[in-house]
């Protein structure tokens, strides 16, 4: 039995007391909280996630919010939603279709209803279904009353009023009182799924430490929502769900978002290399969270620098790399575009640098808060000149930790910038993470040259014969003064050299260095299925979850299909071409118009077929499963 580290004040599971309700046993459930962007849905979802994790379920979440900070109230574009899929089985995605939709207003109902499973449960706050709000949501009639929701189970009651009553004793103004609605709703949700309230009470007490009234009002609302489920004589749809804890590897767990996992992975990389970390960043959605997380970790020898722009962020990182730090810069697509020239400088001067791209919908400003994986070309090719750079991609929030360490390792070993691709979905989503043992990663201590050559002539581009990485010398080291720059340089000396044979040799060497990394990364393994057969589904990045689930579903139906997930995008694993050629067909689902597909075709002359989605939403398992069946039927 999974036990929470902080024991809650009540038993897990559906309650035994109070009005008896039907208890439904399920392996997994998908719940979506949806409301106005000011309703605190992300907070509610986050706390529900924590409570679910503490109950021992595996889970995946999908925060889906507008780019506007406070969009006009009640509007369709101002809806903020948080979806969580949790259960006793292995959970890889935030779920195709919610089983339960909690809609705090008409706009939330309208925008999220299409996703709800047929027969699923809608919980709606009638208090917000006023004529004015209905009009804002472009409803001509009240959907709660006109029978249009008959395909679903509906539970509509006045959450606003219930909340106001529960917080009455605290004398809050109407506005403040209504802000407790999300806690009331959370209370009800906790009851429905038998989650403990203890951790939430603890969290509220810390959050409102400076205002006893707000603390007590929120706790009262939470308790009232819980009690409502417990005692309300509601016939029909309100049920309790019972989910057993998931079978997971023993160990210490916490929930983690991709952004936090990257931050921790980078700190781990710095620790394993024995270097101080310098992080240059500029505010941009959805990458800022990494800068926020690292700014609080100064005691780990982390220096964060909020630069005046994206170019300055990478420029400062390059300066710090030269000075001997583990240098990192981070952004999202548009910001990465701005860094392009400086990335070329890091390639040319052969300095270690980690560049994190939290991809979002593009081009241009695109969809700042929505996910996409359309920067693969940019990562692999997006610089002037022949400027090869290793590219690796994280597949899930927890995976970000390891991938960040790997990015640091490659950057330092090969004296090269390395691009780490993640995306808006991974950055914001949370999942349980088994905390690694300190010491479970092999250190890769950075080496600086300090000895002066006998003839006194130091050549900064002298290379390691195996890796072709050049020597790293910290300015301040006596006797090894040298000059580097973006201009083509003599093969060893680093002095300006435009000669034709030298440029050929330097370009070839820079390419050979990066190509050689293919020997230093794990051979491509097959995630699920056989290493040959009629069909392989190849993915990278955050499509890992839905692809894996879809392949497993197809296999459970007797289809011979395999899943290959690529972490190292550039260079690709040495055996990948040979592996792919052992399948008759190759399907590449991507949240872009076919970028990995093109790369695979180019590298291996395989007939990779694309499955593309660029709606700003992650793939649904069913979409990939349908494509698999379609291909197998051909």
């Amino acid at each position, binding site marked *: *039995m*999974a*036990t*929470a*580290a*902080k024991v809650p004040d009540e038993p897990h599971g559906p309650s035994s007391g109070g009005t008896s309700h039907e208890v439904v046993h399920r392996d997994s459930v998908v719940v979506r909280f949806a409301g106005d962007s000011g309703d605190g849905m992300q907070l509610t979802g986050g706390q529900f996630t*924590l409570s679910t*994790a*503490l109950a*021992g379920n595996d889970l995946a979440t999908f925060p889906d919010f507008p780019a506007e900070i406070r969009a006009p109230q009640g509007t369709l574009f101002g809806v903020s939603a948080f979806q969580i899929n949790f259960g006793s089985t292995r959970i890889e995605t935030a779920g195709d279709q919610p089983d339960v939709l909690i809609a705090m207003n008409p706009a939330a109902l309208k925008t999220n209803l299409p996703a709800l499973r047929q027969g699923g449960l809608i919980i709606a706050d009638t208090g917000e279904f006023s004529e004015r709000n209905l009009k804002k949501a472009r409803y001509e009639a009240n959907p709660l009353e006109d029978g249009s929701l008959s395909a679903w189970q509906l539970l509509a009651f006045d959450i606003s009023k219930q909340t106001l009553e529960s917080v009455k004793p605290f004398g809050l103004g109407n506005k403040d009182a209504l802000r407790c609605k999300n806690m009331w709703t959370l209370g009800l949700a906790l009851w429905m799924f038998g989650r403990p309230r203890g*951790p939430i009470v603890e969290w509220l007490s810390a959050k409102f430490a400076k205002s006893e009234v707000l603390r007590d009002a929120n706790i009262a609302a939470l308790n009232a929502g819980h009690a409502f489920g417990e005692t309300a004589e509601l016939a029909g749809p309100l049920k309790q769900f019972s989910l057993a*804890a998931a079978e997971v*590897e*023993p160990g*210490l*767990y*916490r*929930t983690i978002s991709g952004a936090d996992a990257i931050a*921790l992975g980078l700190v*781990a990389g710095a*620790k394993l290399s024995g270097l*101080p970390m*310098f992080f240059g960043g500029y505010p941009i959605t959805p990458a800022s969270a990494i800068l926020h997380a690292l700014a609080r*970790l*100064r*005691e*780990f020898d982390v*220096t964060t620098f909020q*630069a*005046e722009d994206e*170019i*300055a962020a*990478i*420029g*400062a*990182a*390059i*300066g*710090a790399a*030269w*000075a001997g730090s583990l*240098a990192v810069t981070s952004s999202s697509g548009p910001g990465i575009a701005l860094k392009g*020239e*400086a990335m070329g400088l890091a390639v040319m001067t052969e300095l270690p640098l980690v560049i994190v791209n939290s991809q979002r919908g593009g081009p241009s400003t695109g969809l700042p808060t929505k996910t996409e994986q359309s920067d693969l070309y940019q990562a692999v090719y997006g610089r002037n000149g022949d400027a090869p750079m290793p590219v690796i991609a994280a597949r899930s929030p927890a995976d970000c930790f390891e991938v960040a360490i790997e990015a640091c390792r490659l950057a330092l070993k090969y004296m090269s910038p390395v691009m780490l691709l993640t995306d808006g979905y991974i950055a914001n989503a949370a999942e349980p993470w088994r*905390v*690694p043992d*300190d010491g479970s990663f092999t250190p890769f201590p950075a080496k600086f040259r300090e000895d002066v050559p006998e003839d006194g002539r130091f050549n900064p581009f002298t290379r390691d014969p195996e890796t072709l990485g050049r020597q790293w010398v*910290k*300015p*301040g*080291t*006596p*006797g090894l*003064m040298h*000059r*580097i*720059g*973006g201009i083509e340089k003599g093969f060893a000396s680093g*002095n*300006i050299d435009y000669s034709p044979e030298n440029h050929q040799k330097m370009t070839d060497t820079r390419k050979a260095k990066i190509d050689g990394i293919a020997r230093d990364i794990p051979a491509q393994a097959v995630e699920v299925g056989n290493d040959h057969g009629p069909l392989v589904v190849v993915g990278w990045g955050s499509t890992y979850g839905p692809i894996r689930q879809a392949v497993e579903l197809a296999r459970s139906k007797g289809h011979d299909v395999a899943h290959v997930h690529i972490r190292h995008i550039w260079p690709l694993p040495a055996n990948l071409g040979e592996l792919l050629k052992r399948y008759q067909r190759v399907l590449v689902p991507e949240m872009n118009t076919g970028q990995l597909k093109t790369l695979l075709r180019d590298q291996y002359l395989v007939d990779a077929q694309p499955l593309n989605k660029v709606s700003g939403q992650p793939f649904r398992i069913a979409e990939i499963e349908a494509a698999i069946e379609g291909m197998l039927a051909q």
Partner: protein
Amino acid sequence: MNEISKVIPATKPDDWATDQEVRWCPGCGDYAILKAVQRALPELGVEPHNTVFISGIGCSSRFPYYMETYGFHTIHGRAPTIATGVKLANPKLDVWLVTGDGDGLSIGGNHMLHLVRRNIDCQVLLFNNEIYGLTKGQYSPTSRPGTRSPTSPTGSLEQPVKPCAFAIGAGGRFVARTIDTAQKHMPEILKRAHAHKGTSFIEIYQNCVVYNDGVFDAFTEKKSAPQTQILLEHGKPMLFANGTRGLKLNRETLRLEVVDVVEGDASQLIVHDETNKAVANMLIDMPFGEFPVALGVIYCDPASSFDEAMQAQEQQLTAGKSADFAALLRRGQSWEVKAEAGR
């Protein structure tokens, strides 16, 4: 600049020169600047290996290749960003930044603004030749209106930026001006700049013999220099023309005026106070012709530098805090899954 805490071996100007062939056009003002810098450095009590020259792109930016120090020839306009990273990563290094009017004030104007605003401890040498040299003679952000160039064949229409006014406007705490050929004046200014903590901004009028030859002749020619230059010295009255003329502040109009000095009586002149920002702005803004060109340390009023403040904050924040990585990984609410049969 560096704290001098040990005996620094003496160096000669030659010790600061690399074996690289200098590749500027014959007669270029950059040669004189290189010479003045290599003459000044031995007098600063610093060591080549702790000295860093960082440049952008342009004729001036080839400078680091000729200095036997650590050097980084970066990309167009971005030298201030790389210098910032170097200084924050290793505050012990003595950082010099070499840039030009196009590199530092056009493509890199934003970075220059923020370098100066943050007051990163470094010396900025801005070679101002009022033209793009390396790209073959286009007008630059400091070119005077009417400058004929390949991109302005009928004369440029833009108003120029005054580098020193830009630096003061950005919050600069040390702003100085000198001339490429001023081989006595420049090393003195470099020494002052080096002694200043924070960003020391030096505009160096530099003659481009190929694309803008003689653009500064009106005040750089030796013969007329006493009449056309005013060499500022802190605490001294603002005299020029061999002591026969000077600058006075008209207290009614709040403007500077050129006045004759009769029988050496300088009592009506302003005394140069480097910390007076209002007067500094007036000195920078004086229209040449009616006024001389102000040279020397125009403004110097030290304040805390970003790198220093960052170190101080870091020490304060991390004092007594242990970097417990294992605890960091466990931060937040966690739960233990135990290996039990039938789990």
